[in-house]
């Protein structure tokens, strides 16, 4: 099953490679991984989207906790949470496509953030599955380029990951 794991780690050189190295050395899946500093500059927050059986996920959490630089680990799937991802898609926008693309973008609450002679760039946020659905709604031949940030996640209500 897909899990979103959130963690706080010391914002130190090499910390990211320790996590990435752990996943590759132990053969765990990484679907996406995002990392950025937090309001406390000494801490980075990382979101990892991974998948595996319950046993594998349990091991992943334990192994992450074992890394000396990792301060806290939370499996967001253990409770209610929100997942968001940002995607930028450049699509063909010529002739009839110019209206068509605008219409699909509106349906998915996308925003056109760049307009050129033959193309639009659409910005879209949402859960990973919403972004997938958007791409599926488009004809493959109109997609010129896609870039996705990978998921970020946060617990609902008073589920807070903080030191």
């Amino acid at each position, binding site marked *: 099953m897909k899990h979103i794991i959130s963690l706080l780690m010391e914002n130190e050189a*090499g910390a990211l490679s320790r996590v990435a190295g752990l996943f590759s050395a132990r053969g765990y899946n990484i679907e996406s991984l995002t990392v950025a500093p937090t309001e406390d500059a000494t801490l980075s927050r990382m979101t990892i989207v991974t998948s595996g059986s319950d*046993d594998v996920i349990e091991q992943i959490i334990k*192994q992450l906790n074992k890394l*000396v630089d990792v301060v806290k680990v939370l499996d967001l799937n253990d409770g209610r949470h929100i997942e968001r991802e940002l995607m930028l898609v450049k699509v063909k926008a010529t002739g009839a496509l110019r209206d068509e693309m605008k219409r699909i973008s509106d349906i998915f609450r996308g925003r056109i953030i760049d307009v050129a002679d033959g193309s639009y760039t659409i910005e879209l946020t949402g859960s990973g599955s919403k972004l997938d659905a958007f791409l599926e709604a488009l004809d493959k031949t109109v997609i010129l380029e896609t870039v996705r940030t990978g998921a970020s996640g946060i617990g609902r209500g008073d589920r807070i990951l903080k030191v």
Partner: protein
Amino acid sequence: MDQSNQQKTGQISGAEIIMRCLHEEKVKFVFGYPGGAVLHIYDALFKQKDFKHILVRHEQAAVHAADAYSRATGEVGVALVTSGPGATNAVTGIATAYMDSVPMVVISGQVPTAAIGMDAFQEVDMVGVTRPCVKHNFLIKDVRDIAITLKKAFYIAASGRPGPVVVDIPKDITAEFAEYSYPKTVEMRSYTPVIKGHSGQIKKAVKILLDAKRPMIYSGGGLVLGDASNELIKLAKALGYPVTNTLMGLGGYPATDKQYVGMLGMHGTFEANNAMQDCDVLLAVGARFDDRVIGNPDHFLSVPRTIIHIDVDPSSISKRVKVDVPIVGHVQSVLGEMNDLLASETKKPDASALKSWWAKIDGWRTKKSLSYDGSSTSIIKPQYVIEKLWEVTKGNAYVTSDVGQHQMWAAQYYKFDKPRRWINSGGLGTMGVGLPYAMGCQLADPKAQVACVTGEGSIQMNIQELSTCKQFHLPIKVILLNNRYLGMVRQWQEFFYENRYSESYMDSLPDFVKLAESYGHVGMDIEKPGDVEGALKDAFAMKDRFVFMNFLTDQKENVFPMVPNGKGLSEMILGSDPNKDDAANEIEG
């Protein structure tokens, strides 16, 4: 604090700071080898008297020796190597220590800060190279960080589940100056190892143990590392339950005690493996159910049993085998609490169930799974050499081993009654550790008897250390079980590859006696069973000499019992089985 290239009053150099830190950590030996990136450090080392530097002949041996020093004493071992090739030579040693959770600090030199990333002479990304085989590592970028980083390194290495920590220090940092103060304690919000186990879980465990009908205690390297041998003995004695040790746990429970059923696992005894398979309650202490111990996990789990698992590392629990009562904590503390609970407990173990369980175990014991044919008067059996070694040293020696058949025979036939006496590479299985391990032990305990049980393949992987032993007058006794084969490889080829001995024969061996003598050591060739005991007595009587004993042993002897790869613990092949070789072939199928 101020930092500069100009020394101000109150400041000392980075290299001197390192010396002070090692002094604070009460380091007695540093095993190392000099080179460009560590010249400032070696210059500071020259001027100090707090610890002794042991100059090895290859950096791999420095790390192995520091590792063994730690295994023998429980202290943190320290090695010092230069950048580039010095650092990469150390990697096998670091990985070996990592796999067996040995606390160590390895200081490696690095090219000057400004040269990092420029493909400078003797540059290697040591932090990157060692990342998968260290507990943690550091690259120091400021002279003012040396003291706190070393403090953290020693703390991380020794606490929780121990392990090696690498500290990589660029050359320029060791020449700069800073004020020095060593932190008394260190706190890290990201690293807080647990000590005390959950008391509810401990209570539950005691209750389950007392309700057991066919109990079994299985202890591993974690018990030895956690210095919990006395607590385990107390517990086992109070309960009267059988105990088995893993290869890494030998000596954790005394081998000559009647409740001991021998080592378990791939080459474990018939009684240990069957009791492990057949028990209804299993107490696992500092052991990790690894593939060489329980064989096929599905087969192991095909029998229902309740498993209690004590380990300091949460990630060792339920990794290969799901357990019922996990207890995360320091083994010494948890076993101590269990003993206290038992002492105040009115309930006693089920005596009649225990009696029939022991009767069953005694039945397995009558198989005498470690018996071998010792009738020949012309060919030396390797098992016999180890039995005599045990007798001659009265079971008191430190025994180091390399990797191969000789390692298994040493583990099976030397009866270890004390922890920290059996020093081998169980996790990584590194050929070549034996001699440097013996150096570490002999330095840790200069008056002790130290035997290095080795094979003619393994000993040649660090044979250059004969020179170090000469320089430091280390009276080690090398027990070479010379079968002219990479025996363990040959055994598998015999069993599983229809006797195709591909590259497992050792041709062109040196004359080991002459080789030893060329370093000023004593060499002995022993070719007849009748000479084994006398030779061992002679060798150990030479208390201040290094003796290299070359025993020509039976070339075709195999290690039994054996649980073939992928098989279950109760599916072992015994040495007494007349069809043992066919049985092995069939199994591979």
